């Protein structure tokens, strides 16, 4: 009980504290790749600190939904952090619902964020909400199907056990279906976390944004919470990608050393992945909005193929 509480705290601490660094590092890398010095990777921490000290301006049109949403977003991200194998293959809340819970927790966040976008009544918020739910609704099935393709091969939908199984029997991962699922998951990760080529986190034009359009009305601590939650979402997606498809380095939480080892392995994997995302984001432009569904449909097809392959190549 105490041990699992400790693991829970480690998970929350790593995800909560690591997420801003990940966003910051992405920003730095992307700037370097286009010839700028760029912000420090620690910049998001300074931003959050400042936002927490600021006043909040709330639109008179909004209701409690708008004010509750930032907290709810953080809560969904934190709970998700307890389901994803971050530092060990025994995430403390894994038993509560496995991968399906993971997907639906993200949907819970999206649901409320989209409502909050509508709440202020500005066209920008509605625009962001409408686009976000369209992307999420098309991305979510891919996550389920892709992860499930893995789950079937590992014969469990418990994320930790999937990692464990692939870690101990690497030949399971040597499979074209595995690669298909990886590709599908990677695309969906970009879509769900608002990265290029789906959304441009660097854009400052109301009419083109997705995520930022929804949060245009947030300020101060609310903005900090929303941005923190979305940073955690990116961190969790990248962690999932790293640990599910490159499952080595994670063990059961037998002691601080094992947990530390898992974290180090994760740090290594995330560094590589961050670089990959940064390079990709500088190498592509944002897709035209209605090309995004085509991309998502493509990723869904990949995931579906991967799943079929489980039966066909048995």
């Amino acid at each position, binding site marked *: 009980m105490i041990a699992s509480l400790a693991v829970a705290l480690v998970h929350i601490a790593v995800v909560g504290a690591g997420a801003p660094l990940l966003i910051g590092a992405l*920003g730095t890398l992307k700037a370097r790749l286009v010839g700028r010095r760029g912000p420090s990777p620690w910049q998001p921490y300074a*931003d959050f*600190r*400042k936002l927490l*000290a600021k006043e909040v*301006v709330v639109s008179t049109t909004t209701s409690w939904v708008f004010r509750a949403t930032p907290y709810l977003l953080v809560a969904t991200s934190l709970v998700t952090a307890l389901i994803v194998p971050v530092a060990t293959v025994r995430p403390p809340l894994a038993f509560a619902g496995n991968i399906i819970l993971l997907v639906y927790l993200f949907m819970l966040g999206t649901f409320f964020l989209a409502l909050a976008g509508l709440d202020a009544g500005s066209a920008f918020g509605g625009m962001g909400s409408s686009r976000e739910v369209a992307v999420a609704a098309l991305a979510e099935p891919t996550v389920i199907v892709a992860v499930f393709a893995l789950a079937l091969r590992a014969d469990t939908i418990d994320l930790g056990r999937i990692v464990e199984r692939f870690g101990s029997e690497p030949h399971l991962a040597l499979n074209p279906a595995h690669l298909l699922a990886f590709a599908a998951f990677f695309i969906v990760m970009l879509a769900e976390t608002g990265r290029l080529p789906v959304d441009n986190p660097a854009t400052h034009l109301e009419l083109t944004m997705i995520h930022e359009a929804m949060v245009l*009305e*947030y300020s101060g601590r609310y903005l900090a919470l929303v941005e923190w939650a979305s940073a955690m979402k990116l961190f969790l997606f990248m962690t999932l990608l790293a640990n599910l498809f490159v499952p080595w380095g994670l063990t059961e939480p037998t002691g601080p050393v094992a947990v530390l080892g898992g974290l180090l392995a994760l740090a290594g994997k995330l560094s590589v992945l961050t670089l990959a995302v940064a390079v990709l984001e500088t190498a592509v432009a944002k897709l035209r909005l209605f090309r995004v569904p085509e991309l998502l449909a493509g990723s869904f097809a990949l995931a579906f193929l991967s799943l079929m392959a489980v039966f066909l190549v048995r």
Partner: protein
Amino acid sequence: MFRQLRTALRTGIATEPVAAAGEIERVGARLASEVARLFGRSLAIRQVDAGSCNGCELEITGLTGPHYDLERFGLRFVASPRHADCLLVTGPVTRNMAEALRRTWQATPDPKFVVAVGDCGRDGGLFRGSYAVVGGVADVVPVDAVIPGCPPSPAALLAGLLEAIGRPRR
């Protein structure tokens, strides 16, 4: 993509150290202490064109380019005044923009500060006295600092902003 990487490698990092000392006219005493404490490492800027000829905007956009790269100091431009700490206002403030500027200022959460940019922003410049111009930025919203010039160069803008938030240049 490889051609792109090659270009990136050949060009390297174009960002330069900040050269000149900031020429900035402080209007209030508030700036130095509180602003530096809060925004020394993170400053979100909402730019408002309240009537400029677009010369100042041209130079302000230069700040985001590789030479000046204001992001390295934790400064960045944001889309909504709700996200902003600082309004970077160019003038002269026209009659038709005065209300919009006032509302933008209202929409920005406290603590915040206003930097007027350019000779027009300071007092209306050449356009002072026109039937369609209210005057400088300070005639509409409280101004904390002025970065003069017509238009101020990106170097002057960057130095001025860093001076305003009391951030050492490196």
